[in-house]
């Protein structure tokens, strides 16, 4: 029954029970304590009384005054706590009183018994016992006091409980219940769709937080409802405008129809009143019972599949009979929210008709494609045959190329070997002719000197030629070693300029050096680079009659570019392709005068590309001069295969 009570009586009842229990516990403790205290008090009283009486009765007993004793006993018995009293003494003194049922003091007529506190004492006068006193204090008054205590405790408990309950109820009403009622009123209003109420509870405690929460919730609900209304409106608008035929019904067993959109009515001719439930709609849509069962069976199958795979229900295509008797091919989809079932149908009637036409065209097209494909297959077979022939030729060319490379390498090895064999006797020729020309072997006449000088020059020319051939052959044969080291670009250019300076001075040519600010450090084969620079610069001096030679350098990314320009005779464009060919010397009026092996530029290009990982280029204008440029990486990449 309590469960159905409101929160106020529940709280009040709970508080009442708690307070009553607490106060009962307290009063029980108080009762026990009081009982003990009263018993102790009674014991103490008995002690005091007997002590006092033992003193007070000295005179009456000593005086053997029975009347006095009797009077004193009567006086003592005025104390209602005294249940009985017996005084006995010499001289036939005997006084005894006991309480009757009406608690009157009457003479003792029998044994004294009951729940009593007993004390006795002799009465002594000058050390002589002159009498004896017995007193019996009744616990009746203690029990009465305790009973009063119980009654008072009950009254106190009741009164305090009611008072505390009253005040706590007031406080609860103000602090909790009233605000909760307000909350309840507002929540009920919200439940009825009335959002106009707002809780005005301004508190920082849980109630206040609850009120704030409800206000916030109310606002959120209202906002959501507005959104839902708007959404419903939009949905309805969309549903009304949807090209799909939509039928909404509840998810109950009867599947009562709730909405059909205009497309549904337009498509099938039925309004919602015509098909108020699915049970009415189906026989109209599928009047043939057998076909209807077939469609239903397909639905069940799709539904079971969807449930098993936890996927959406695949659409079911069915022919629906319209109100006017015509038939429509509809692709039905189905979704359910658990509360609302939505069947939506797409009219495929025209599509299916078009598909039939399309299928016919497809078949015709496929036939044509098959014919064309046969033709193409023939052409393809022919092309594949030609491709095989070409591939065979390519393979033959590759083999020939490899043989050529092998032959070229053999050639280089041969030249290197032969050049080395030639250089040894040449050194003897040059050496001895030199010694002879210097007169160390005796005086020579002019003819001998002229002839020996020719032999000596021819030997030096041949030695230079052989050296170049050896270098080229080593480079081409891959036997030339690279010794990279760090060095200054300025330093090597200064060295090259210094080496060429005597040649330039003989022809009164100036050598200009244009270097960027700051030093550039290179890591490459210093000797090979110097060889290339000397080749460029010696060529420039050879083919320049007047003017100057300029050597310049610049950094380009990770590379360095060194250019040697001259104001010499220049090179014709037609000669450019032959410029870096071996043993090629261009036809100029300086050809005989300058001499040369025809291997300098060829060797320089080989060194630059094969050993220094760079390249060379040339720009020239006939009659104005040429610029030979060498571009190499600042830091040579070490390659184990590059030896």
């Amino acid at each position, binding site marked *: 029954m309590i469960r159905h009570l409101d929160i106020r009586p529940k709280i009040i009842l709970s508080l009442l029970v708690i307070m009553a229990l607490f106060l009962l516990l307290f009063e029980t403790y108080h009762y026990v304590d009081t009982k003990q205290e009263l018993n102790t008090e009674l014991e103490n009283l008995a002690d005091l009384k007997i002590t006092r009486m033992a003193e007070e009765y000295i005179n009456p007993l*000593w*005086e*053997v*005054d029975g009347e*006095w004793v009797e009077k004193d006993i009567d006086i003592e018995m005025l104390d209602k706590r005294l249940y009985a009293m017996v005084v006995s003494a*010499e*001289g036939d003194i005997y006084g005894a009183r006991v309480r009757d049922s009406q608690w009157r003091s009457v003479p003792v007529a029998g044994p004294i018994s009951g729940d009593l506190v007993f004390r006795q004492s002799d009465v002594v006068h000058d050390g002589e016992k002159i009498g004896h006193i017995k007193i019996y204090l009744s616990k009746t008054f203690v029990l009465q006091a305790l009973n009063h205590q119980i009654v008072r405790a009950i009254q106190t408990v009741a009164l305090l409980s009611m008072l505390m309950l009253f005040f706590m109820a007031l406080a609860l009403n103000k602090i909790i219940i009233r605000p909760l009622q307000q909350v309840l009123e507002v929540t009920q209003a919200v439940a009825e769709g009335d959002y106009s109420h707002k809780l005005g509870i301004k508190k920082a405690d849980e109630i206040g937080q609850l009120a704030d929460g409800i206000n916030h919730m109310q606002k959120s609900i209202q906002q959501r409802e507005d959104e839902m209304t708007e959404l419903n409106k939009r949905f309805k608008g969309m549903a009304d405008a949807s090209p799909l035929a939509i039928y909404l019904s509840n998810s109950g067993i009867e599947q009562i129809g709730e909405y059909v959109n205009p497309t549904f009515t337009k498509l099938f001719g039925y309004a919602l009143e015509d098909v108020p439930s699915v049970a009415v709609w189906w026989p109209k849509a599928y009047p043939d019972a057998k076909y209807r069962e077939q469609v239903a069976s397909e639905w069940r199958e799709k539904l079971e599949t969807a449930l098993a795979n936890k996927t959406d229900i695949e659409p079911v295509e069915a022919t629906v009979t319209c109100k006017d008797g015509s038939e429509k091919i509809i692709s039905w989809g189905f979704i359910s929210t658990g509360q609302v079932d939505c069947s939506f149908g797409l009219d495929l009637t025209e599509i299916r008709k078009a598909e039939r036409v399309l299928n016919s065209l497809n078949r015709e097209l496929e036939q044509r494609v098959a014919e064309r494909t046969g033709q193409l297959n023939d052409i393809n077979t022919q092309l594949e045959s030609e491709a095989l022939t070409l591939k065979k030729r390519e393979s033959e060319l590759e083999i020939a190329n490899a043989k050529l490379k092998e032959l070229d390498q053999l050639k280089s090895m041969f030249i290197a070997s032969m050049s080395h064999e030639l250089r040894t006797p040449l050194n003897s020729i040059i050496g001895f002719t030199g010694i002879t020309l210097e007169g160390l072997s005796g005086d020579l006449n002019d003819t001998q000197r002229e002839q020996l000088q020719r032999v000596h020059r021819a030997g030096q020319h041949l030695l230079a030629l052989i050296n170049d051939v050896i270098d080229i052959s080593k480079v081409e044969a891959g036997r030339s070693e690279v010794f990279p080291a760090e060095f200054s670009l300025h330093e090597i250019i200064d060295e090259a300029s210094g080496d060429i300076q005597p040649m330039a001075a003989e022809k009164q040519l100036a050598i200009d050096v244009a270097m960027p600010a700051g030093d550039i450090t290179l890591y490459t084969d210093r000797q090979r680079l110097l060889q290339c620079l000397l080749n460029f610069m010696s060529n420039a001096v050879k083919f320049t009659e007047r003017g100057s030679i300029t050597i310049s350098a610049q950094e380009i990314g990770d590379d360095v570019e060194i250019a040697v320009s001259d104001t010499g005779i220049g090179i014709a464009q037609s000669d450019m392709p032959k410029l870096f060919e071996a043993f090629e010397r261009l036809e100029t009026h300086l050809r005989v005068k300058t001499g040369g092996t025809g291997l300098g530029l060829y060797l320089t290009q080989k060194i630059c590309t094969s050993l220094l990982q760079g390249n060379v280029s040339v720009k020239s204008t006939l009659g104005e001069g040429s610029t030979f440029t060498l571009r190499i990486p600042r830091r040579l990449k070490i390659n184990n295969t590059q030896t």
Partner: protein
Amino acid sequence: MHMKFRLLAAFALLLMAGSSAGFAQEQPVELDANESPPYWSASMPMDGLCGEIVHAISAAAGLVSHINYKPLQRLIEEDGNNDLGNPNFYMANQDFAAIVPVCIYQTAIFYYAPRHKKGINIQRVEDLKGYRIGILSGALVDHAYFEKAGIVFEQSYSRESLFKKMLLGRIDLCIVADMAGHQIISRLFPEQHDDFVSIHLPGSSAPLAILLDKNYPHAAAIGKRYRQGLQSIIKSGKLDEIVLKHFDNQHVSVEWLEPLERFSRVYNFIDSEEDE
């Protein structure tokens, strides 16, 4: 020696006093007495021996007397009332307009013979020394005299207590009015009456009188009327009749006439002095 015992008799015990009556007949004279049977007793017919004499005197004098009973000590200490008893008890604290002796009593020493096999012989005051002597509270007038003599008294509030204590051996002897003592013994210990011994003290006769307070209205006139009443009942034999009744037909009253006359003159002299 007689003087000593007379003195003893004077302060000792019983004060059976009378008091004057209101002058107007219709208004009774209020008199205070100590319960001391057979002389004064509310429980006895006509207030005991002396009470009956006072009533007879009053009737003869055309007065009405009313006796109120109070403890002896209180009677002595109150000084605005009319008393009945031994004038010596009261005269030290109070002035009286008239003192009218109406009865004679003798003081006796009692002891319980079984506790004193050899008997007790008291001839002089000094003979009391060494005994535990019981006396009624208020009856001892001159403490200093006896203390000087080395005699110690134990006072009790009632004569009955004195005899009971004596029986229990708590005191050796007690001093009370002889008739009162015998009356108590007969009442309390009738079977042991003979075990109690009384010693009459020679020359210990003392009056019991009506004492009218000096400020009591018409006290002197009322005193005269009481005296006339006394003379009247003596002459009429009423006094003898009353005494015979209380003394087992012994004509004790004859022995009283001379001391009554003597004490009347003594206290009448006081009245006369005051009259002057």
